[in-house]
């Protein structure tokens, strides 16, 4: 099942397209990282997926064949928004009861167990919790619904490293226990390698890179040559070139994974963080064209 499937999806505000020509297929069972600078379209895409927004162009289905915002879709998707919205005046216990009463299925025991593990006092008001506790509360409420898809919009942006680690540990444990798929929008490239096994890179409202992390890493190499930068080459497409003295380093995408690299060519694999950075840099410079997903 594909948790998200889009075809030429777009969202326009007035004359500006916040997202355009977005065609994605995100399979279930993975953690997909949505990466890109501010204003890239990450939140726009997320709002479309969870049904708070409707498309201006194109199509979008979630959880197989469901329409976003429809009752079955709302039922199967858990969401934690940026800045973690909650009713600040409600006690933690009230938030649990409220979420229970706003949903068809809700695992109250799980919620209470998690909150006890986290030492979050049920009687405290949500507004009195620390940032990390609030984020964990919101996550607990979302996970207690046992959703099939969990969507997180930069939920750890304002958390300290320890709180962030605990938050992600909870998410991962839910993936292991429940099989829930996760879509996580994030600034933090350094976390990518540990948590993401699927990547969607956005910039200026367009998809720049999309595919399973393993496939993407297999398709890219950092090539060092003594000759000058070669803009076209039969074996690869150049993503980014950096001249360093007599050497030129080029991040390239192999046209075919089986193609043998030319002799005398020093090529090494790249890490996902390095890869993402290169695409982000090149797309802001307007060099990189829109790329399709990994070879399938």
């Amino acid at each position: 099942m594909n948790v998200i499937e889009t075809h030429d999806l777009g969202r326009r505000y007035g004359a500006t397209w916040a997202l355009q020509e977005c065609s994605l297929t995100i399979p279930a069972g993975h953690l997909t990282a949505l990466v890109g600078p501010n204003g890239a379209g990450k939140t726009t895409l997320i709002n479309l997926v969870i049904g708070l927004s409707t498309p201006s162009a194109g199509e979008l289905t979630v959880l197989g064949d469901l329409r976003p915002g429809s009752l079955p879709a709302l039922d199967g998707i858990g969401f934690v928004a940026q800045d973690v919205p909650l009713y600040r005046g409600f006690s933690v216990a009230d938030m649990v009861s409220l979420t229970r009463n706003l949903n068809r299925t809700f695992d109250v025991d799980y919620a209470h167990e998690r909150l006890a593990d986290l030492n979050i006092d049920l009687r405290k008001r949500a507004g009195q919790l620390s940032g990390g506790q609030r984020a964990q509360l919101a996550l607990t409420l979302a996970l207690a619904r046992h959703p099939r898809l969990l969507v997180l919009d930069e939920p750890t942006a304002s958390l300290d490293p320890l709180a962030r680690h605990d938050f992600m540990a909870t998410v991962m444990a839910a993936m292991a226990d429940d099989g829930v798929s996760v879509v996580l929008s994030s600034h933090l490239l350094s976390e990518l390698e540990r948590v993401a096994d699927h990547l969607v890179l956005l910039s200026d409202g367009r998809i720049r890179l999309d595919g399973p992390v393993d496939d993407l890493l297999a398709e890219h190499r950092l090539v060092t040559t003594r000759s000058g930068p070669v803009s076209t080459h039969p074996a690869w497409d150049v993503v980014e070139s950096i001249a360093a003295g007599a050497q030129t380093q080029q991040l390239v995408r192999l046209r075919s994974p089986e193609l043998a690299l030319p002799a005398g060519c020093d090529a090494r694999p790249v890490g996902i963080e390095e890869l993402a950075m290169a695409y982000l840099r090149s797309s802001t410079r307007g060099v990189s064209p829109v790329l399709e997903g990994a070879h399938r």
Partner: protein
Amino acid sequence: MTLDKQVNGSPIRLRLDPSSGVPTYLQLVQQVEGALRLGFLQPGDQLPKVREVVAELAINPNTVLKAYRELEHKGLASGRPGTGTFIEASLTPVSLPELANLRSSLYRWLDDAAAAGLDDDGVMALVDSALRDFPDRSSATRGARQRRTSGGGAA
């Protein structure tokens, strides 16, 4: 990797070094192999449950599964559905005479390197690069040599 004195569960606990530059799944594989080599893991021991690793290290469960699959592929472990992943083979540690031989051939190689003008950092860089390429070239022979049936104890 640390030793865990628990009676139930796995004898080892996996760790992560986020700044090492080594891919996560590979770190896990290397830790298990290291434990095997040092005798902390014996055939029949259980590897940590995916859920535990994930909850402690905050890494993607698919990464842990990938590491365990790699160990299965190398013949070192096998997964039993519903129960967990268990060690199937051992890695014989290198014996002392063998170590001595390897050391002396290494001294000879280092002499050659010094004569060619390679300094310490150059030696490390070359060794690193060769190690990275090496598995691709001879995984078949290494696999055959490492595979032992259970019962081969650590020294």
